[in-house]
């Protein structure tokens, strides 16, 4: 179904949807060891001017990476993944990940990536390089 070799410039990647919640954010703190209170303590996050707890950028990025691995399956590897965190992600958001092939050089695919919330605001922009296995 994937057949990475058939992907060409301007082809779109399969979309992934993710709904962050408080429990996932707490669990990500535990698995990552990042206990920054801006992710865990609403009162702290409000005092810090964030309006409430926010998801770890790395949690959102991990889901962006998962979108790629679900798409490439065993046919390739992520050799580079770069993101800019554009806007905060909060519990209750609905995040949709998108990607499009921007360049193809032999067995390397370059993908422009982004994630948007339910208000169509961009929360992450990114770039990935995928090497296609022989």
């Amino acid at each position, binding site marked *: 179904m994937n057949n990475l070799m058939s992907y060409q410039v301007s082809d779109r990647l399969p979309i992934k949807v993710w709904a962050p919640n408080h429990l*996932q954010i707490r669990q990500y703190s535990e698995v990552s060891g990042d206990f920054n209170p801006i992710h865990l303590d609403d009162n702290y996050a409000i005092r810090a001017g964030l309006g409430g707890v926010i998801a770890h950028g790395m949690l959102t990025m991990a889901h962006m990476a998962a979108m790629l691995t679900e798409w490439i399956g065993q046919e390739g590897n992520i050799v580079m*993944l770069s993101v800019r965190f554009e806007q905060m992600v909060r519990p209750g958001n609905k995040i949709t990940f998108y990607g499009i092939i921007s360049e193809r050089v032999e067995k390397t695919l370059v993908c422009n990536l982004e994630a948007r919330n339910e208000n169509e605001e961009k929360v992450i922009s990114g770039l990935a390089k995928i090497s296609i296995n022989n």
Partner: protein
Amino acid sequence: MIGKELIGRQSESVVLKIEHEEVCRFAETLEIQFDDRVPATFVETLTRADIPGFKMLPGMIHGEQKFTYHRPLLIGDILSYKLCIKDVYERTTKLGKVTFFVIETTGINLTGEQVFTISSTFFAPTKETANE
């Protein structure tokens, strides 16, 4: 005042092992597909060495993140990694004066080949940093 003197400071080299159980737990927590390959961002959760004189402040915001794999990272791999402050700079943004810290983490395998490079950019309002 913004900490330019921190540029070039490094952590000690620390050894880590990519354990199946930990990778599995990471994937389960995220409810993502796990096919015995190491998720691209997993290794960041293991690279927490201290850099002398530098401390992540609770209010710091994560701005950018980049992973580069020079060769595949596999379960069972034993690596050593080191963190280094690559840059510290100040910009005026809509939040006012903000200090950016660019931290690079490099991982090498037992034969000395580079496996990954991670670049992380964090920022915090300059005043807050100066007051800490």
